């Protein structure tokens, strides 16, 4: 049985907010995203730190990529709302302190969050969205100078895209 994504996102929410209802409302998404942006960046940087064999999140503009990709009309509107809502939940759990924590504290906060179904789904989504940026065509702006591909020794095929799909 395939998981009922929408139901899961709604019931799983500890905030009692409904991703779906939220997505249906016309919200100022840019504003909402701005409020969680630093938390999302901090999570990405924790998952993809400096000194790893793959490039660091900090060096790859992965938050900008994430914003651009989730705001395009082709992106699932439930997941778009979930991205923000999951970050808000993390902020709430950690009483707004997540971004100022040190590495050990962040690790604990994220592993604790991962213990909940909701948190583990959200973290998994963060991982996917970050890797999508890092390992997609450099045209999307987050695989800078192909350094994501170089690290993996794997390169996209030819022809490369001339435009971002968001622009076509």
């Amino acid at each position, binding site marked *: *049985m*395939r*998981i*009922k*994504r*929408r*139901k899961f996102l709604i019931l799983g929410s500890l905030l009692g907010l409904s991703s779906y209802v939220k997505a249906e409302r016309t919200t100022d998404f840019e504003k909402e995203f701005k409020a969680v942006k630093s938390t999302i960046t901090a999570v990405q940087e*924790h*998952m*993809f*730190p400096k*000194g*790893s*064999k*793959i490039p660091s999140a900090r060096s790859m503009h992965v938050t900008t990529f994430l914003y651009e*990709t989730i705001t*395009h*009309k*082709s*992106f*699932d*509107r439930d997941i778009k709302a979930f991205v923000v809502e999951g970050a808000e939940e993390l902020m709430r759990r950690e009483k707004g302190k997540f971004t100022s924590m040190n590495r050990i504290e962040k*690790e604990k906060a994220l*592993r604790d969050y*991962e213990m909940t179904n909701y948190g*583990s789904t959200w*973290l*998994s989504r963060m*991982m*996917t969205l970050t*890797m*999508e940026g890092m*390992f*997609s*065509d450099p045209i*999307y702006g987050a695989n800078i100078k192909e350094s994501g*591909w170089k*690290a*993996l*020794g*794997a*390169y*996209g*095929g*030819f*022809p*490369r*895209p*001339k435009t971002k*799909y968001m622009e076509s």
Partner: protein
Amino acid sequence: MYDVVIIGSGASGGAVAYTLCKAGYKVAVLEKGRLVKKEEFSKDELAYCRRDLVTPSLFDEYHTIEEKVDGKWVSTPTYESGWSFWNGNIVGGSSNLMSGMLHRLHPDDFRLKSKYGEIKGANVVDWPISYEELEPYYALAEELVGISGHYESHAYEPKRSTPNFTQPPTKENRVVKLIDKACHSLGVTPLVTPRAVLSQTKPGRDACYYSNFCGSYGCSSGAKGSSREALLKPALATGNLTLLTNTHVKYLHTKSKDEVSYAVVVDTITGKEKQIEGKIFVVAAQAHESARLLLNSANKHHPEGLGNSSGELGKNLIFSGGGSGQGELHKESLKEIKFDELMTTGLFINRTVLDWYFIDHWWDGKFKGGSVEFMFEHQNIISRARKNNYENGKLVWGEALGERVVKRMTEQKNIRFEIFNDWLPNDNCFVSLDPTHKDKYGMPVGKLRVEGHPQDVKVGKYIAKKCEKILEEMGAKNIYSGVSSSPPQNLVAGGCRFGDDPKTSVLNKYCQSHDVKNLFVADASFMPTGGSVAYTWTIYANAFRVADHILERLKQV
């Protein structure tokens, strides 16, 4: 008024359009998707494999899928599950994106019931035509679509009217040396997979340049035998084809009981509706959508759906699948070939095993088996990097993630097998109209109940065990296989069975509606059983056969 109106521009629609346009008839192809030109196709993993760029948004158009949960049928819209049953909705349909591993059915696939008798819980019937009747069209499709390969005689390889393929096989990765050796030492015969990919240039089409991203991607050289490249382009060149893109067909209208008079279409950009008239209508929207379209065309003359006096419309939907498995070839333990050779990108593994197509064994018994394809794991970068990043149920991140992903991507390559065995038609696999859900054009969506028959899983497991042995013999590590009755959504057939008896079938042997004389269904809907190979060579061949019959009719008008 057009001579012929075709709904859907994919493999089947393209074959019909090609034949009729070449013969000088005026044809309209109505395609709900847009035209993506050869030059526009890129290897953009994000766009083609991770976003709905060549398929509709599931919030606009979707299916509901019924599965049994705790003894009850539960229906889930695909916008909730993310399990899309769209396969490529652009000019050329899903044939743009196929991997192109093509096989002919075996002559006994046309008479499964006579050969194996009844199977409890399965609605198996013989076909009203034989392999011999379809063979000339397999040969025609081979030539026109451009199928490369190498014929070797084998007990379960059907006979051909031409001695061999005109195009030699595409270039192969050295890993085939390992596969061949492993097979031979286990007494298994590896055969070369016929592929709808040109190994040599053909007028108007360049040969394959081994781009490494073939399946799930459009081809920018013209080598892949998509309907767009191989059939619609030459059809357009005749001047007889009107290709109407962004034209979604809502339903077909019949003014009288036995004739379709026009198609009601909506322009997907402007939202404007119009009627398109023709003398003959050919539905080629891919099996599950063709049945839905005919069900949605119910009217006072045809209250249960167009051409559904038998009550069989939408029933006996089938899929082509059976399971798959994988093993890892590691740098440190690789023998016979060099690691660099294994890691060479782009080249194909053209290897098929047909040894278990029919099983007649003193211990295992006598039953219909299946075929096997070997291939590398899809070379998409994001999906390869993203998978298997859990340890003890926890997501791996940080430096450990870097170590893990880089090692996996640079020190091993994964080899897969895919099994294709008959999906036995049964009462719990069918398309109907969802009573509540509608698409953005206001039409009921297709509701798919997709239960497989237990025999399919048994056969899949039987073959998977044998394939695991081949991978083991090759020196692969961490071998596993997965066999389930979950349907592969890109290989679908049935729903409008053909047959001689109008009481038990929707179409006659020419895939013409028993009830409505100017209505044909040209895609895989006609197949009462699916054989143990992927469908597309049969789809192309049968559509050419149907087109020949339509030509005969047009000549008489």
